[in-house]
């Protein structure tokens, strides 16, 4: 049961949604998949005067891939993302991440954009969009603007979005040249779980990008580690130095799912496996996308 009383609007156009947002400001909440928002309403964590359901706005439900640019509209669900041939072909990291995000019944409803708008530290889309250097498109009564992922997260459940603004979608450039990636997610068991920690690694011949989830107030890029991994050091020495640099890039806490010590210790294992998996995928010999390279740890946790 939800005790908060609110009105409900389902605008058919973005203009109408922006007008409603302008009128209601902070007392309005955008409703897309609702898999976070309905829970927050139940728990009285948010008490809006009005919900603006954006599922009636056709343009926001579009997913397209043109000129090496993927555009994910704000209404696109995790399931729709993974069913897209362009995503499966050109952005397999999304498929690897999405296979570990909640379960089918949630993925059928939850949206990519909603996941990063909720902005909880463990959001699985965060590290992936960060290593792809995705850019959010935002609109409001003041006009349109773009926000790079590096400037999006401001704190737990806090983003760079201003009152009256709405995210219309996110663009994801396909990395140039030969590249490979890996997403590793540490969970308490193999079923559905929020991340105890996560890491995304993306490499090409010229770039190396690393981002972590669940080990800082927001998902974070790790520029020091990226620098070390692209240095002239031999790969084994670079990996060792990169693992040593993890405490500089993260600040894990102890919570219901994990202790900070366990998170910190496992990040080293996770980074090593992700980097090695990416290296083997670059050579064409790595495991298919969709394998959790930490499955043996979750099996141990289950006592199997």
């Amino acid at each position, binding site marked *: 049961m939800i005790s908060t009383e609110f009105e409900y609007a389902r605008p058919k156009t973005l203009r109408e949604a922006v007008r409603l947002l302008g009128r209601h400001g902070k007392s309005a909440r955008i409703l897309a998949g609702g898999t976070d928002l309905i829970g927050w309403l139940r728990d009285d964590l948010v008490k809006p005067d009005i919900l603006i359901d954006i599922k009636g706005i056709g343009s926001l439900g579009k997913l397209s891939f043109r000129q090496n640019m993927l555009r994910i509209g704000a209404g696109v669900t995790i399931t729709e993302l993974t069913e897209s041939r362009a995503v499966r072909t050109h952005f397999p990291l999304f498929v690897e991440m999405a296979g570990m995000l909640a379960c089918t019944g*949630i993925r059928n409803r939850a949206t990519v954009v909603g996941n990063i708008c909720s902005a909880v530290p463990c959001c699985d889309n965060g590290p992936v969009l960060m290593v792809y250097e995705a850019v959010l498109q935002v609109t409001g009564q003041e006009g349109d603007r773009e926000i790079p992922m590096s400037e999006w997260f401001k704190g737990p459940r806090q983003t760079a979005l201003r009152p009256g603004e709405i995210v219309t979608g996110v663009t994801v450039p396909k990395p140039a040249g030969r590249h490979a990636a890996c997403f590793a997610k540490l969970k308490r068991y193999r079923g559905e779980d929020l991340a105890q920690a996560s890491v995304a690694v993306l490499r090409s011949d010229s770039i190396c990008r690393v981002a972590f989830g669940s080990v800082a107030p927001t998902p974070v890029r790790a520029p020091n580690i990226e620098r070390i991994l692209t240095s002239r050091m031999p790969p084994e020495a670079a990996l060792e130095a990169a693992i040593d640099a993890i405490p500089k890039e993260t600040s894990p806490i102890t919570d219901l799912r994990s202790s900070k010590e366990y998170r910190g210790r496992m990040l080293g294992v996770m980074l090593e496996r992700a980097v090695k998996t990416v290296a083997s995928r670059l050579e064409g010999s790595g495991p298919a996308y969709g394998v959790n390279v930490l499955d043996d740890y979750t099996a141990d946790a289950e006592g199997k």
Partner: protein
Amino acid sequence: MKKHEITMKVNGEVRSVIVEPNDVLLDVLREKLGIKSPKIGCERGDCGACTILLNGRTVRSCLVLAIEADGCEIVTVEGLGETLTPLQQAFLDNNAFQCGFCAPGMILTATELLQKNPTPDDDEIKEGISGNLCRCTGYQPIVDAIRTVSRSGKSGGRGKSGRSGRPHE
């Protein structure tokens, strides 16, 4: 709060109902439309007991507002077929539920899984039902039931099930 009349196709039948914006779909299905197979479990999207098919895809009806479902098509186990589907028969044959609380959600989740992938292997079955909790069976009979339909190679025909040696068969 403003009241709204919404219209949904529920198990093949067009139903209209008056709701308020904060009415949750699960509660409306159970209390206003008398459809009791979606169960009230965790009410936060974790357990899967309230699973329904909304426009052909499984969703947690505890995380959907009734008003969002205006104009949508809903299927619950009551509306899966005139008689038991091969999957439902396989659940019976394999004693795939004990208290039965998870069964409607499990069956709808497995129905969607088999529509997308008619021949899932055990890993795919386990991944498919990973969002549905069962506190009785230890899951193995459920995986067995889904596997018998998977092996039949089609989710539309009457599945021949044949797990023997279970106490109540």
